[in-house]
């Protein structure tokens, strides 16, 4: 984010980046490096455990299982669709949170984080109570349109979007509040409408924040388990995403569960790494 701003604002931020370069040249203090290494090890060692325990000789054979590919495809499709839903609703929501001066915005901001605090299984139950066949809203969907969300892929997307949206909103809200509002004001003085200003000035300004939020949101949706299995159920090809397949495999065939976990991990790293290069400026990656 700093880099984009550095490019956009000529004088001030450049001075800042020169200073940070100077600091970097001086080397990092051990008091930071040691806990950083401990943190890194904490995150990576469990993964190493998976890799060590993986049944390498039968790996390819297990991967060729059509059920694995089906679950992987469904996971990728559902997580991407959920991310689109989050972008469409979440970016405007973040804009309202960051720019509105109405009283009570603090409460609204706290409410946005509810899905973060709620155990996902509880989130799934809550979704059932509202959008289920007998739910507050769901019963009308069923009665008027003959349409019901649970046990459908659409239900998976709803569950994932519910859990993942706060990651996007918080990230974009932060970017908007950190952005220099003088550009928006300048655009307005030059006669740009609010919509034009939003599209041509605000959005490009916070694009790195949106990209980072979308990545977090996608990753969270991809790993979603509790809300999905509670709200959308578990049926191969329809609602069984990779995390659900992993959980069930763990009951009878732990080796298969490890293989599935590694696949999910490898695919998500590949997707995230390639997106980082494209979306976020190379310096940020």
């Amino acid at each position, binding site marked *: 984010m700093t880099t984009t701003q550095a490019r956009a604002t000529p004088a001030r931020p450049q001075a800042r980046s020169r200073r940070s370069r100077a600091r970097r040249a001086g080397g990092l203090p051990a008091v930071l490096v040691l806990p950083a290494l401990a943190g890194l090890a904490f995150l990576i060692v469990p993964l190493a455990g998976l890799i060590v325990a993986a049944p390498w000789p039968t790996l390819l054979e297990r991967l060729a299982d059509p059920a694995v590919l089906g679950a992987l495809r469904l996971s990728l499709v559902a997580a991407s669709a959920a991310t689109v839903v989050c972008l469409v609703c979440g970016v405007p929501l973040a804009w309202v949170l960051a720019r509105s001066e109405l009283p009570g915005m603090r409460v609204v901001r706290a409410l946005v984080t509810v899905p973060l605090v709620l155990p996902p299984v509880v989130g799934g139950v809550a979704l059932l109570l509202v959008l289920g*066949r007998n739910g507050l809203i769901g019963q009308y969907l069923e009665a008027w349109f003959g349409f019901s969300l649970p046990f459908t892929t659409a239900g998976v997307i709803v569950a994932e979007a519910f859990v993942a949206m706060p990651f996007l909103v918080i990230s974009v809200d932060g970017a908007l509040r950190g952005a220099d509002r003088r550009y928006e004001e300048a655009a307005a003085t030059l006669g740009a409408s609010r919509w034009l200003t939003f599209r041509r000035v605000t959005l490009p300004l916070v694009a790195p924040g949106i990209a980072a939020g979308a990545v977090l949101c996608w990753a969270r949706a991809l790993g979603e388990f509790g809300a999905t299995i509670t709200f959308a*159920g578990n*049926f191969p090809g329809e609602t069984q995403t990779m995390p659900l397949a992993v*959980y069930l495999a763990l009951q*009878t065939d732990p080796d298969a569960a490890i293989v599935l976990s590694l696949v999910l991990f490898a695919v998500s790293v590949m997707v995230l790494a390639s997106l980082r290069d494209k979306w976020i400026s190379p310096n940020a990656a």
Partner: protein
Amino acid sequence: MRRRPGRLLGAGSVLLLGLAGCGDGGAGTQREWQSSASGDITVFAAASLTEAFKEIEQAFEEANPGADLQFNFAGSSTLSRQINQGAPADVFASASPKQMQKVVDADNAGGDPTVFVANKLQIVVPEGNPANVTGLADLGKQELDIALCAEEVPCGDLSQTVFEAAGITPSPDTLEQDVKAVLTKVTLGETDAGLVYRTDVAAADEAEVDGIDLPAAVEAVNEYPIVTLAEAPNAETGQAFVDYVLSDEGKAVLEDYGFGTDVG
């Protein structure tokens, strides 16, 4: 983890009794000096036993004031995995002979498991039976929403046996990760029917669900074995608990919760 203070207390009392705590053969020496049922024990029990075992716990602790039971309720496959990975437990009560066998095969059972109850499946429908489900054949109907256990978990395994015996191909809309999740879907009215243990229906709110018995011809029985564990920190009390579960008092409680005790 939870049991550790008790273990320290146990070790302390052994020292007070004047035994030289050399450390080796600890369990064996302790057994001689402890009264038959005292101290903490940890029981790993299948989730379907939750309500019945909690009631048995009260009676057992009243009969043995020195004893304190701790439960770990979860799916039997989770429990067998935890035990085989060294979780400290004294007793394992499994809802599936298959999962018990895994513990026996890993030399973690302290003796031969005893079957203490049997459970049967029942069709469960939301109160009032809105879809007019009458029997197993309805669970093969495409137009109904059906929840079943995934075949990876014991209740799903048993469901499959039942469907095979009846010659019906089920048409599930969701394969749940445990039997309670099936019950939840039916309780909330999200599915028209499900297949769960009769004990789950007995434990559920009568105002929310109804149970429909399966025809005797296709009824499959799930046996629950119980055993003390080889690495049990308090094997003596563990055995006392197993004996209590197998006693007439224990059986009466289990029957109250819908289990069949005419086994073994």
